[in-house]
């Protein structure tokens, strides 16, 4: 077929291995993906393989799993638990608030919709120092909002246990980019709700409450959970914001790894950092796997 030959041409353009005498049942068309395979192989899979390799050896190059065992003890354990806590709370708060906001956003259209969509996009991608410092400026001891709250509502933010640098402060900052992320992820699910379902419910005699209970919630629940899982993964892996907000008081896994890497490396602990890094990958893998499973359930509908 003429077209098939022509389609082989791009592989030559991209530096693929070109045509060869097909001795075996070898599908030439996969060669077009060679550049991608090579790139990902070297810059993604090879580093991960190296981490795996380093994490199962001690510094005497003996095969061992002790580094993984260590992750369940002491500071490492604290770090993982801290990250889980932060990710979990952030997921709950942002998931629920995000879903509610999403509900209203989905009803907008035109200019308002474009603005809210792009706003969500920008906000979801803020992080690190810009975000942290913005919050310090707003909610810090000298912050504008802190002062405003004091003057107008007579609410001393710092009177209680609130502190921008403790757990709840960081949670607040995380919600700032998690909620827009939720809006972005959850919007498609809401857009797939058909108005015919509401009308059918009405014509069959159902009340609004019954519609919620029997149709809306069951339909939305899987999408909601899968969106929450993505929020969890995102909060768990966040580094820049944690680094900017933390003054060392909150144990978080990404920061721990950062410390192990940043010249605080004690010879014995070099590989421990790799084990930790792998630990984070494994957690992330589980969460994404659960997400994909839920997605399949949703698609079946």
């Amino acid at each position: 077929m003429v077209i098939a030959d022509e389609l082989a041409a791009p592989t030559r353009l991209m530096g693929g291995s070109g045509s060869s005498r097909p001795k075996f049942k070898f599908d030439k068309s996969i060669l077009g993906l060679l550049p991608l395979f090579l790139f990902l192989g070297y810059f993604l899979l090879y580093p991960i393989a190296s981490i795996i390799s380093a994490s199962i050896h001690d510094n005497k190059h003996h095969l061992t799993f002790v580094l993984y065992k260590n992750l369940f003890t002491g500071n490492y354990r604290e770090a993982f638990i801290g990250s889980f806590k932060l990710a979990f709370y952030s997921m709950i708060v942002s998931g629920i608030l995000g879903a509610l906001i999403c509900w209203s956003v989905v009803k907008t259209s035109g200019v308002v919709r474009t603005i809210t969509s792009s706003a969500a996009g920008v906000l979801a991608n803020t992080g690190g120092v810009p975000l942290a410092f913005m919050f310090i400026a707003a909610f810090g001891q000298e912050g504008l909002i802190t002062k405003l709250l004091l003057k107008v509502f007579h609410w001393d933010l710092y009177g209680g246990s609130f502190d921008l640098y403790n757990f709840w402060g960081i949670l607040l900052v995380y919600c700032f980019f998690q909620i827009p992320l939720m809006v972005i992820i959850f919007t498609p699910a809401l857009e797939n709700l058909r108005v015919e379902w509401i009308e059918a419910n009405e014509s069959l005699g159902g009340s609004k409450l019954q519609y919620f209970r029997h149709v809306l919630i069951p339909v939305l629940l899987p999408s909601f959970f899968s969106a929450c899982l993505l929020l969890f993964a995102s909060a768990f892996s966040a580094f820049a914001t944690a680094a900017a907000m933390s003054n060392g008081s909150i144990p978080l896994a990404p920061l721990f790894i950062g410390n192990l890497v940043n010249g605080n490396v004690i010879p014995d602990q070099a590989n421990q950092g790799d084990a930790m890094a792998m630990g984070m990958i494994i957690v992330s893998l589980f969460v994404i796997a659960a997400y994909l499973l839920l997605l399949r359930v949703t698609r079946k509908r």
Partner: protein
Amino acid sequence: MKRQFTWLDKTIIAFAGFFFIAPLIAAAEYSARGYGNKGHTLSNYSWIIHQLGFSPALWTSLRIAAITILIVLVLMVPTVVYVHLGGRKYRRLVEILCLLPIVIPVVSLAIGAQVAMPKSLQSTSYELCFFYVVVAMPYVYRTLDIGLQSVSLSTLVEASHSLGANWIKTLLMVIIPAIRSSTTGALFITFALSLGEYTLAVLLHFHTFPTWATNASQQNIYGSIAISVTTLGGAWILLILVAFLPRIKSLFARKERVA
């Protein structure tokens, strides 16, 4: 229950908008403060530019962003186009591969880079370019894939062939114009990501704009907040522009038709 836009919805959005804009405004106000409560000034913004290391850091980040964009252009765009034209059966495989980086926390990738990459590569900040491509890959792939799908590229190419065009002509006159808007979107995402990426840069000890900004913050809190405001505000304005681009384009198109 109707899906009407009620006052409740308006309130919710207004509140949400307020909560998200308030910190930005607060930060803007903060950054405009002079020392010792002497009222407001924009001096902190000029401070940014005159700081030591501002230009080199910014320049480095721009160079890295440019190379990253180049790699995306040379690697990702042809691959996704190829998948849509000839390699259709590999679509699922490519999709999984390109979305794989999402699973890997950037921190872990940084560790991996340190462990695995040869010293020669690690000594240049261009190492970041390759990893930025990896990190951006899911978003780039999504954007290109959706864009190419909506254009049904394979149909266009078949039509072009049936009309007698060869591959070069088809490439120039059909394929490239068809993928222009989604490619622009993908490159834009890449650009934004490269400029703002902090984790990999700091863990691999490179001096890019974000790392510089973080360091500079130690000295002048007002100045660094000024940087934050500029970054966020700038990103927002840019994104709104991009979002409204279709409308602006159609405005011009209409004028042409009338004329």
